[in-house]
């Protein structure tokens, strides 16, 4: 035993390592253990009165109640509240995809166009999406539903840059050999763009879309803090303003986390279906 007691290299692949680093339990075991430790830690903090929070069990009861019965103060279930936020994120992100992907492909493929647009985008990119909120309210002041337009706009800005940058990155990483192969077969520029460069950069584009939805989901919560009478951000902020509704706040926060995770998994699933060659 000691420093020199290492596994010979040829045993590393092929030979199953039994009873080493707890492998016999599988990785699922650690995932369950992680959740249990988190809940246990929370319970301990509450039991020893280190934090003035409801216990995990109390919170879970409120959460289930909010999902099934709804919140009497708002006359809505948690699902309805989450859905009104999610709807805006989906709409805004779809607009982002429709604009950012073609723009990114064009920027990746046409050099002068990239330089032309780059200067503009480099000015806009460092601005946090939330900084646009006041200006957006001014711009959409005369729209039929200004709050909704502002929220869509803010989420759109948040999702736009990850999608655009990953699209450009995907196009720039297209294997030269594939383009040369297509050229020697006599393919037109349009064929190379749509049948070589676009599919080749799809994995990268999907990555951008995934990140974009994540950022968009953060933006909607913050945008709902500032204005409007709908959505999960509004719900947790107004629950705080009412006071004494900590379990409701935690339930709302948990719902935000859950929806974010499901969204991420769903896009990964879509990618697997639409990019079967990877």
């Amino acid at each position, binding site marked *: 035993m000691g420093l020199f007691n290492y596994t010979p290299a040829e045993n590393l692949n092929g030979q199953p390592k039994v009873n080493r680093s707890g492998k016999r339990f599988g990785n699922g075991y650690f995932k369950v253990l992680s959740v249990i430790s988190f809940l246990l830690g929370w319970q301990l903090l509450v039991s020893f009165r280190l934090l003035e929070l409801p216990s995990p069990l109390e919170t879970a009861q409120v959460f289930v109640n909010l999902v099934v019965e709804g919140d009497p103060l708002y006359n809505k279930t948690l699902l309805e509240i989450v859905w009104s936020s999610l709807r805006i994120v989906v709409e805004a992100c779809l607009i982002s995809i429709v604009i950012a992907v073609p723009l990114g492909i064009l920027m990746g493929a046409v050099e002068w166009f990239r330089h032309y647009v780059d200067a503009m985008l480099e000015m806009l990119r460092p601005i946090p999406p939330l900084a646009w909120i006041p200006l957006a309210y001014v711009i959409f002041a005369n729209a039929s539903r200004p709050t909704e337009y502002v929220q869509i706009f803010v989420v759109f800005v948040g999702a736009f840059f990850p999608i655009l940058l990953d699209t450009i990155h995907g196009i720039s990483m297209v*294997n030269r*050999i*594939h383009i*040369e*192969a*297509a*050229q*020697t*077969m*006599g*393919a*037109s520029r349009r*064929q190379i763009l749509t*049948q*070589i460069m676009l*599919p*080749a950069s*799809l994995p990268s584009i999907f990555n951008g879309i995934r990140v974009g939805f994540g950022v968009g989901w953060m933006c909607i919560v913050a945008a709902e803090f500032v204005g409007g009478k709908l959505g999960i951000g509004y719900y947790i902020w107004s629950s705080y303003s009412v006071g004494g509704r900590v379990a409701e706040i935690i339930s709302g926060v948990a719902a935000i986390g859950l929806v974010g995770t499901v969204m991420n998994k769903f896009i990964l699933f879509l990618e697997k279906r639409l*990019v*079967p*060659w*990877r």
Partner: protein
Amino acid sequence: MALILRDVTHQFGEVKILENLDLQVEDGCLCCVVGPSGCGKSTLLRIIAGLYQPAGGEVLLDDAPPSLEKGEIGFVFQEDALFPWYTVEQNIKFGLKARNVDKNLWDEIIEYNLRKVGLAEYRRYYPKQLSGGMKQRVAIARVLAYNPKLLLMDEPFASLDSINRNMLQADLIDLWSREKKTVVFVTHNIDEAVFLAERIVIMNSKPGRIKRIVDIDLPRPRNRTDANFCRIRRSILEIIESPDSQRTGPNENISNEEVKSI
């Protein structure tokens, strides 16, 4: 005369890659280009294909400069150049579509060409499901499908193991003797060149020039362990390793008689 290179010169910036290349390849000739790495063999193929414009000189394919749009060229790359997002069948379709081949014929052409390379059952496979040798077979089927005038092969078997490589070489000879396509095959493997070629173009590097052109008239099928085969291998190797004093000028290709004497 199928392919003619006249005084082809090329450079990247200040660095001369190719200098005063003259070469003629007749219809149906299988011509191998050998030389040390970095002698501009791949660049030469890309110039012939029309992917690069030469800095000087001209390339003529049947009396006209080669054009990418006409799809006269079938290029087989060293790297895996199959499109991973397409199945085997779709990869071949891409070429047929680019060449505007009648859609009604696609199915038949794909079947016929995959059978030629022995992969008819793999139509619906993705490239990632194929081995290296199978991928190169598909790459060959993909270019044969649109029936190019000239086949350019850039070390297509270099990344394969030697058993697979020998098999593909034999199959290539088989294909070539049936179809009599003009082939320019770049390799740094002398064994491969002697096995395949009717004519070997030996290049030297920095800048790339043609050192010697040697006709190989060994009967086929060729046997790698045959005494004549080994003798020719040795003399090719000697030419490659000999100092540059033997370098021929642009217009003094060695006559056939002289070449045959080695």
